């Protein structure tokens, strides 16, 4: 299934837009690209006011105000991992021959997300023979995404259907790649929630209120503000940011 996001009515959905859309200051919504696969029935859909498959989340921020981020909410099952999950575990090197900018290979990359976790993780992130994960939120400990600079790591997570990672901290390059590609939101918590959440718990991430709610345990946690990455994320990634600030000419494609 695709990851999905809840948006409150009449507020622009504001996930990181993928970088392949055009930005124009004249309209808020350039186009919405629906995935070729049909939208799956979702057991959690009743909790949503509206749900949009992640690949349809291509909405311009050019005219959306910076407060638009406050409307973004992710809801779904979480998958919990520990500290120092490196990029070899997120996407082992043998799959790096897949080129993320090629659409079929992007999908394939997603199907291998977190396949490198040791067998001590008895619940697998993606069921055998599935292309997508049922967990739209990954919860991790410290230093998530350490190791190689491969952008395949946030891309594989995003392609598998993950909307956000919530970790105690990130390795620099993973954080940067997540922001630059807009594949997943790299969010940070103040406490080690990886010890308080279990794989399969139902959670909601509310960006506006900077909080994560675990509905299974009934606990609520504070998220750290996104900080310096904010302006780039607001713009929609490095290319959109550069176009917005006049660094590079507007996309004419």
């Amino acid at each position, binding site marked *: 299934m695709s990851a999905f996001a809840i948006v409150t009515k009449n507020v622009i959905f504001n996930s990181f837009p993928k970088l392949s859309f055009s930005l124009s200051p004249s309209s808020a919504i350039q186009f919405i690209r629906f995935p070729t696969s049909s939208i799956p029935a979702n057991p959690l859909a009743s909790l949503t006011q509206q749900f949009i498959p992640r690949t349809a989340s291509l909405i311009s921020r050019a005219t959306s105000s910076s407060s638009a981020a406050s409307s973004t909410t992710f809801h779904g099952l979480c998958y919990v991992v520990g500290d120092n999950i490196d990029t070899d575990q997120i996407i082992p090197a043998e799959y790096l021959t897949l*080129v993320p900018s090629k659409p079929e290979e992007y999908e394939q990359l997603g199907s291998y997300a977190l396949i490198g976790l040791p067998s001590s993780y008895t619940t697998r992130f993606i069921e055998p023979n599935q292309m997508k994960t049922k967990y739209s939120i990954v919860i991790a400990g410290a230093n998530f995404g350490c190791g*190689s600079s491969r952008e395949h790591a946030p891309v594989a997570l995003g392609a598998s259907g993950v909307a956000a990672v919530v970790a105690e901290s990130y390795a620099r390059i993973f954080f940067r790649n997540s922001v630059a590609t807009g594949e997943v939101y790299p969010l940070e918590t103040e406490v080690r929630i990886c010890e308080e959440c279990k794989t399969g718990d139902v959670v909601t991430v509310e960006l506006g209120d900077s909080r994560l709610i675990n509905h299974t345990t009934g606990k609520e946690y504070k998220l750290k503000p996104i900080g310096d990455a904010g302006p780039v994320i607001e713009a929609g990634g*490095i290319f959109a940011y550069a176009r917005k600030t006049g660094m590079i000419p507007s996309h004419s494609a």
Partner: protein
Amino acid sequence: MASSLTAPTFSSFLHSKKDSGLSAFASTSPLSAQRCQNTVSKKICCSVVAPQQSERKPYSTGSVKTAMTMTEKILARASEKPHLSPGDNVWVNIDILMTHDVCGPGSIGIFKREFGEDAKVWDREKVVIIPDHYIFTSDVRANRNVDILRDFCQEQNIKYFYDIKDLSNFKANPDYKGVCHVALAQEGHCRPGEVLLGTDSHTCTAGAFGQFATGIGNTDAGFVLGTGKLLLKVPPTLRFVMDGEMPPYLLAKDLILQIIGEISMAGATYKAMEFVGTTIESLNMEERMTLCNMVVEAGGKNGVIPADSTTYKYLEDRTSVPYEPVYSDSQASFLSEYRFDVSKLEPLVAKPHSPDNRALARECKDVKIDRVYIGSCTGGKTEDFMAAAKVFLASGKKVKVPTFLVPATQKVWMDLYGIPVPGSGGKTCSQIFEEAGCDTPASPSCGACLGGPKDTYARLNEPQINKLEHSMQVCVSTTNRNFPGRMGHKEGQVYLASPYTAAASALTGFVTDPREFLQ
């Protein structure tokens, strides 16, 4: 005997001076000023005093109000700003962008998508493309990725493309180099004072040349290809002062394993790591590269070593591009400073499954091993093989486990067959390795450093070798990462070690302190 030595605690070698003051205006802070005076009185300050005073421009001058670290100065110059402080976000002009066969095709894809099919790279002489990761494999996608690089380089007339076409015999490819970080240095692309970005986390290796070098992703690289610029955040600097004579059984690998063990795998996240001190000054360029190579294993954004006569000597025949080194001002502000007395350190390993899982090599003497791997950008340079050969030569024995040798580049490979090992009566490394019963040196590439396709030479493919003895396959390796699955099978156990320790372990079949053979 190694085992008869006492084991002082690690922390006894370390004095950390934490300083929370991030201000680069050091003179305004009494605390910083006082610290700087202390530093000035110490010998290590020699290493941060700049030669070539006459050539220095304002941004590299240590005026009181704009005291900066090396990293800050390099970024200030590249962003055309008089002064920068940690945390500043600036558009930086990039001197060199490097990419390889794993991330190049994706970066090219993003470049074309964003700038158009007919777009040209910002500077055909500043893009360096080095196929090195998945070369000697029949994996069709891996082969296709090298073809994508070749097509792009032809189309863009890229000046520095180190191509390989004949996979059956690397020697038939005069342009082919091998592991990108070692090739960048050998080919003269690493120069003091410059900014080098690469789509590989170990791009930080080039900091050994006194430049700012860090790894980026495909999207950032696609952006740089089109613009020659990138938005970078200025990191605060941690300073590591390494003093004392390097004992003959230690290598730079031991120093960096010591540091990573001390500050942990996330200890330098978002930060620059600057290495100074008498020990650093005594290291040759390849050893300095080993040190900077692994800063990313501590989370570091970049590592940096002040350029000196060793650096200039290395660059002499390699580049004709003028460069201008910069140095940290004596009053620059460091986030913290760590001091090590290198003469008291012992050979180390990083145990599975984390580079900060430090232990003394001799503490692991009961760990039985199945193989030894000498290779990669960290431990597959000429000096690394010379070090291993020295241990084999000193012992005169044969290895007890399969010992795989993967030279980083074609040049390293030639050195193994061409340069006599000191004290051997004229034997080359390859002769010594053969006599010790090692595998023949393989074709230069990343090899099994990161696992790779299943047919990669020396890859850890089986979870276990011998069910009766112990369950997991154990490898002592001169590489840089030992996360689960890094060298192939995710249950494999990798001990990271120096070439000395790796060679000593090959001779005994257990993790072994090289002093067993080197004393």
